[in-house]
């Protein structure tokens, strides 16, 4: 909604100018009128006056120039003029020395040897029209010497307001003016007019029949005959231009003007096109056809309310007229419609047809049913004035059940309770009165408020409380905090676990990502869980919900690889969505992805790339940071998108916690990734169980020294390190505090089908220093066992 300060001035005696506009905008915001834009329109004609051409002579040195003498009131100026239409006796706009015309300033100069002390202006040079064919000729009646500012000067502020969707009353100048007058402490003046009706009666020419009084509680019509359809006068065109409307003709312009003035939409029909002198308001039939005035063909349904004559439909009620029912240049008799339609019905039409108009926008929010006479008379009067029409007496008014003002009670105690502070009774009553809400006191606590029909948004006490604090001023609301806070234990365990998981993964040097839940179906199919489809996706890239976090990480990896980010070490914890026995299920899940370069080459290190043992290390460290329990890592139940030969699953007893390893080549291939990708994934629910079953106890530490020994074992090429490790653990028992593979060797010094593992073992006792002998016995036991039980060779 655009508010022009010049237009608003008609109803409120308050000057908006450059010095108060910023403050006004700020105060409007506090009154719930957000400003989207303020346009300052200024036409200033300093040093421009009205002059009279008293002499025209051809320029001696130029064919196309004329030497003029121009009387500007207090002196006569020599002016060289290039316009073809300049003539003696014309009244013209003159730019004198100092005047700015477009980009240059007028000053005395010689043009081809002749002195010129001003310029006679064309329309475009004044910014008043596009005309540059000749100078602008003014009405002779205008007094010579009149400053041009008195004729054409303009200063206007056009404030573009955002009106919240519950407020219909502020979509008109009078409704907005009520709020503006309250804000500035000024009075709102309704336009005054006197309607001159002729003898003939509207009732004798038009009959109104409402077939659905719920959808259309009121319909008023008035006939105006012998109208001259023509261009609107300047003042009207200027107003419409200011609010962004294109002037069409006086009749259409008047309906628009009155709609903006009152907030109540009107419609003008060409009465000659209305068959049977009858208006019928009814619902459309299924599949009924309708052609809008902008020539769009619609097929309707039976929820849409129509305005019809005796034969055909002539308008989509409250939204738009039909192609041939409107006012044209040859119209002489105009039937004006001012109606009140039910909000829901209009919304139905708008939703179905997707046609949004200035009219529908107002009806949708709800307008005042009871200002119809005022609106009708205002428009009729203007048509009488500007279109020289004969206004038929009386209004054909179908209003079977009058909509009355509501009475809503407001408790002062309740107001204070909701707001947390007190607004005085007097303040409430007075500010309510200023915006049209009359109050009477019921008892010491209760105000009985009469809510006029132009405020359909107020139906409950809470609406009045909001109104009270809005008018009081949101900037004056105190800021209260209470220091006594009762802390409730946090019961959201999952959320805490997610945060723990994120912290652990971040501490492992990984970068957290956040990806959208929406993904392309083709990627979902790769993963095992049945994906959830989105019904109206914006594009195919988001037609399903992700059923795996790995899927998101793969997309991220692909993007980063293409951008030459060579180290990709990322994780995400978030929701996945899938069907579990036809039920949409969402669970939290975590995934880690490693690919590309692990370390760049540096002065002390060779470049290396990620491999299986990196993701295994991440999985192991992550789990170790969550639990002291030893979990088992087995080749069992590996999801299909992993490479079976390079993947493991982690188990706590019989419960699978997650899987990790290299993704299969097909998986990577689907994302066009041509390098190996290593992932770890686990459900948060599994982590939750793991944490519940784990209590970190503090272990005693031995005071005695530990002894470290290495042993190298030659094994078959397919032998697993874990077999040997477990054997050694079992053999030694409690004295072995640690064992790790510190070297692997394959190569020339041993046969091709063999490899060598070196294990480093730490021995330590809690009650004594182990002596050489004990260690030697243990080592012999190990060697003996490895040789005899596992059939291995010791190097």
């Amino acid at each position, binding site marked *: 909604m655009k508010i022009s300060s010049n237009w608003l001035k008609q109803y409120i005696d308050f000057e908006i100018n450059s010095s108060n506009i910023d403050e006004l905008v700020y105060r409007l915001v506090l009154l*719930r009128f957000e400003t989207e834009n303020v346009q300052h329109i200024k036409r200033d004609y300093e040093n421009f006056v009205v002059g009279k051409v008293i002499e025209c002579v051809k320029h001696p040195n130029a064919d196309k120039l004329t030497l003029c003498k121009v009387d500007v009131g207090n002196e006569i100026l020599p002016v060289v003029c290039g316009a073809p239409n300049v003539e003696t006796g014309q009244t013209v706009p003159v730019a004198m020395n100092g005047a700015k015309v477009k980009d240059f300033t007028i000053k005395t100069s010689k043009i081809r040897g002749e002195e010129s002390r001003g310029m006679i202006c064309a329309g475009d040079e004044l910014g008043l029209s596009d005309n540059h064919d000749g100078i602008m000729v003014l009405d002779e009646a205008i007094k010579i010497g009149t400053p041009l500012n008195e004729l054409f000067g303009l200063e206007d502020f056009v404030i573009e307001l955002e009106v919240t969707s*519950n*407020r219909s009353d502020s979509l008109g100048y009078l409704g907005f003016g009520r709020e503006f007058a309250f804000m500035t402490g000024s009075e709102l003046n309704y336009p005054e007019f006197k309607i001159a009706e002729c003898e003939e009666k509207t009732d004798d020419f038009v009959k109104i029949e409402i077939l659905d009084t719920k959808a259309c509680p009121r319909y008023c019509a008035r006939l105006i005959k012998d109208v001259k359809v023509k261009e609107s006068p300047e003042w009207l065109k200027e107003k419409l231009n200011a609010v962004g409307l294109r002037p069409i003709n006086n009749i259409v312009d008047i309906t628009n003007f009155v709609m903006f003035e009152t907030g109540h939409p009107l419609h003008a029909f060409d009465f000659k096109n209305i068959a049977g002198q009858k208006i019928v308001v009814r619902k459309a039939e299924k599949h009924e056809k309708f052609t809008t005035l902008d020539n769009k063909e619609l097929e309707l349904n039976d929820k849409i309310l129509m305005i019809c004559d005796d034969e055909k439909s002539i308008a989509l009620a409250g939204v738009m007229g039909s192609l041939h029912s409107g006012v044209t240049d040859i119209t002489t008799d105009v039937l004006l419609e001012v109606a009140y339609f039910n909000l829901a019905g209009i919304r139905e039409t708008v939703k179905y047809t997707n046609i949004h108009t200035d009219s529908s926008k107002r009806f*949708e929010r709800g307008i005042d049913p009871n200002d119809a006479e005022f609106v009708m008379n205002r428009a009729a009067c203007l048509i009488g004035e500007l279109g020289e029409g004969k206004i038929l007496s009386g209004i054909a008014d179908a209003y079977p059940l009058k909509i009355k003002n509501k009475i809503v009670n407001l408790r002062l105690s309740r107001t204070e*309770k909701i*707001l*947390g*502070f007190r607004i005085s009774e007097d303040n409430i009553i007075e500010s309510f009165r200023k915006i049209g809400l009359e109050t009477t006191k019921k008892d010491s606590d209760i105000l009985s408020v009469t809510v006029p029909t132009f405020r359909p948004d107020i139906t409950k006490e*809470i*609406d009045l*409380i*909001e109104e009270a604090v*809005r008018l009081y001023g*949101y*900037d004056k*609301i*105190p*800021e*209260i*905090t*209470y220091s006594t*806070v*009762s*802390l*409730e234990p*946090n019961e*959201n365990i999952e*959320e*805490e676990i997610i945060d723990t998981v994120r912290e652990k*993964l*971040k501490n492992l*040097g*990984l*970068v*957290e*990502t*956040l*990806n*959208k*839940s*929406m993904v392309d179906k083709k990627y979902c199919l790769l993963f095992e869980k049945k994906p959830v*489809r*989105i*019904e*109206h*996706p*914006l594009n195919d890239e988001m037609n399903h*919900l992700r059923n795996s976090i790995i899927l998101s990480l793969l997309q*991220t990896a692909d*993007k*980063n690889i293409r951008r030459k*980010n060579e180290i990709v070490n*990322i994780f995400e914890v978030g929701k996945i*969505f899938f069907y579990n026995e036809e039920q*949409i299920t*969402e669970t939290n899940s975590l995934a880690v992805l490693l690919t590309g370069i692990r*370390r760049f080459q*540096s002065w*002390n*290190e060779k470049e290396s790339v990620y491999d299986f043992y990196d993701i295994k290390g991440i999985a192991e460290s992550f789990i170790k940071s969550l639990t002291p329990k030893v979990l088992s890592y087995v080749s069992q139940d590996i999801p299909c998108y992993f490479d079976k030969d390079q993947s493991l699953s982690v188990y706590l007893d019989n419960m699978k916690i997650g899987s990790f390893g290299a993704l299969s080549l097909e998986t990577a291939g689907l994302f066009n990734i041509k390098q190996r990708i290593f992932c770890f994934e686990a459900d948060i629910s599994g982590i939750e169980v793991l944490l519940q079953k784990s209590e970190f106890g503090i272990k005693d530490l031995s005071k005695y020294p530990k002894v470290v020994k290495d042993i190298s074992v030659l094994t078959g090429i397919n032998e697993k390190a874990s077999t040997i490790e477990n054997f050694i653990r079992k053999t030694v028992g409690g004295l072995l505090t640690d064992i790790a593979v510190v070297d692997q060797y394959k190569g020339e010094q041993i046969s091709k089908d063999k490899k060598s593992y070196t294990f480093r073992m730490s021995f330590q006792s809690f009650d004594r220093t182990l002596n050489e002998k004990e260690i030697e016995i243990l080592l012999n036991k190990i060697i003996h066992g490895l040789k005899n039980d596992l059939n291995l060779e010791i190097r």
Partner: protein
Amino acid sequence: MTGLLEKKKRILDDISASASFEETEEKRIKYLSKKGEITLLFEQIKTVLPENRKEFGQVLNRLRNQALELINEMKSKYSEVKSEKIDLTLPGRNTSAGRYHPLNMIKDDLKKIFNKMGFSVASGPEVETEYYIFDALNMPSWHPARKVTDSLYVEKDKLLRTETSSVQIRTMEKGKPPFRIIAPGRAYRNEKENATHTAMFSQCEGLYVNKGVSFAELKGTLKEFFRTLYGKDTIIRFRPHYFPFTEPSAEVDVSCFKCKGKGCPLCKMSGWLEIGGCGMVHPIVLENVGIDSEEYTGFAFGLGIERLAMLKFGVNDIRDFFENDLRFLEQF
């Protein structure tokens, strides 16, 4: 015997002469390994006359012990920490520290601050029914957000939540007042994406329902929150607004932390940053979950996490958060 004593002197002198840890180790191998000189001398015991064997053995043992002791002494001398000149300009060994996503950093901040103020964290499903997203929240049937094409539906009556406000209903349904929760999470709209809008975004919902909760307390609570987030001299402004699920409602502005309200490009010269919406829980919403709205009152607020993050980190395009370009993420 004299030969042995001479040998002893020579060996011990030789060990003493070692100039480094490595050389000492070489000497150990030379004298004390399986085939070392001292080890081999023990084998000579049997060639010594029986009456001299005991003495020979004792001398040899002493020699072995002295040699071992000397070697250990020398070794520990050479392995002592010593300072040497190195090139300090070479880069350090790389260890990566890991990063949180910037949106989650803000989310963590929110949780920390509101936890201190007595709010606990709640969550709810992202795929919701119309009841929790619209009906229970007093969203009129004609509200634009209810248009099927504006939301992401997955089944009839099932859609991705358009606001985290649904968690309000889920929370209040489960128990009895008082409730004091925040619910950070994802929300979705079927929107064309641009520099300020994405189809998926993150919000933080807040709800406090109790006896005597007021609009003024809402303002105070948010003010304290933003003072903690953006600095002590932060002030807030309430602007009246309309939301179906709260009344009275307000939009919340925070004084620009960059220019302290003087006006700068960040706040588009206004001195204020628009940050979220809030209000008193509408009595209809309370009644919808069976709470007596005469006895209890409550406030609710919703903050846009992307917006807070964009402001705090100076990110100009919201889409950057979901691109996950590591060069972007590694800056936080």
